[in-house]
């Protein structure tokens, strides 16, 4: 029973209590850089989730074979390989998303979230826990990016997932799809998130 509780904990902590974006402030570059629309945020989130999951799995499987002094370069190679795979697959099969995300795809490799989870969690825990940890953290990241993207798209373009709900000529809050809007929207979302998580705990 305790075991089961623990696993649920492993999964859930990434979504609210240790949310990678709002609480831990990890992976801020893609968070701010690609969230000018909800779809871009979702795409980036899922790409990161995939890399995080795969690298957590591999790291937790090979952890006992890697001498601890060279573990960081080893993790980097593992992560970079999965990032390259994501890059190639996106370019081949979802080219328009590949263009939208641009330089932020290769930069998944320096997303502190992924190396952080490999080092702090997967290299110390078993396969099952590592998978749940990656899914929870990754999902927390996806939710955060999609939320930020949605807020910016609604205010900045008057649409959500490309579905426009204002007229063609309406003046929208363009600031929010420009760079400053990323900082400002994230600032207020963080306040909101803190408020909610303080209340629930």
């Amino acid at each position, binding site marked *: 029973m305790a075991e089961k509780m623990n696993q649920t904990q492993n999964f859930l902590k990434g979504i609210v209590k240790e949310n990678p974006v709002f609480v831990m*402030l990890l992976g*801020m*570059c*893609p968070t*701010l*850089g690609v969230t000018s629309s909800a779809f871009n945020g979702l795409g980036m989130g899922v790409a990161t989730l995939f890399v995080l999951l795969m690298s957590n799995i591999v790291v937790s499987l090979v952890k006992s074979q890697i001498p601890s002094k060279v573990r*960081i*370069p080893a993790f*980097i*190679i593992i992560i*970079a*390989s999965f*990032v*390259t795979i994501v*890059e*190639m697959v996106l370019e081949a099969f979802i080219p328009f998303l590949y263009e939208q995300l641009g*330089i932020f795809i*290769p*930069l998944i*490799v*320096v*997303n*502190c979230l992924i*190396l952080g989870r490999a080092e702090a969690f997967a290299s110390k825990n078993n396969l099952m826990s590592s998978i749940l940890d990656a899914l929870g953290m990754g999902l927390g990241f996806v939710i955060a990016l999609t939320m930020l993207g949605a807020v910016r798209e609604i205010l900045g373009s008057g649409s959500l997932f490309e579905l426009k709900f204002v007229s063609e000529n309406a003046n929208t809050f363009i*600031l929010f799809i*420009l*760079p*400053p*809007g*990323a*900082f*400002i929207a*994230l*600032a*207020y979302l*963080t*306040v909101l998130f*803190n*408020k909610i998580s303080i209340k629930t705990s």
Partner: protein
Amino acid sequence: MDYIIILIAAVFVNNIVLSQFLGICPFLGVSNKVSTSVGMSGAVLFVMTIATMATYLLHQYILVPAGLDYLRTITFILVIAALVQMVEIILKKVSPPLYQALGVFLPLITTNCAVLGVAILALGLEGGSLLKAVFFAVANSIGFALALIVFASIREYLELANIPKGMKGVPINLLVAGLLSLAFLGFTGLV
């Protein structure tokens, strides 16, 4: 002329932090004091320039001729990680005072996406040459330094300001960064 445009574009118009969103982690993380932000800027200038030079040569003379362009991400990050280690060791031996000033920031730079980002962006420069790529790296690190130092100076004043409880810490910093980014938006269209 090309070089002046690259410089102005990198420092003001497409500021690496405030409009391209690269290097946000150190931007938010080590900007609480002006003195630390100067140290960080120095370290970034150093590493970014050497890293771009190394990765540009690697890409041009090894990866492209061998048709291994797809290994770009993995080789670049390894080169950068190794380079940071090397710089750290050499500095320690050759110039202890410089090591004292930059040493603590060096390990942080491996995961600074600005370094990898600039190394990749430098490959796409029009009419690219090694000199241009290196100049691009220097220009971008000046842009990074400008954003970081201005931001740190504002944060020092914020310490003394009366801020609503819910906004303290991260949210107010993000808001200030947003306003700074808004100010830099005024440079659009300059080149």
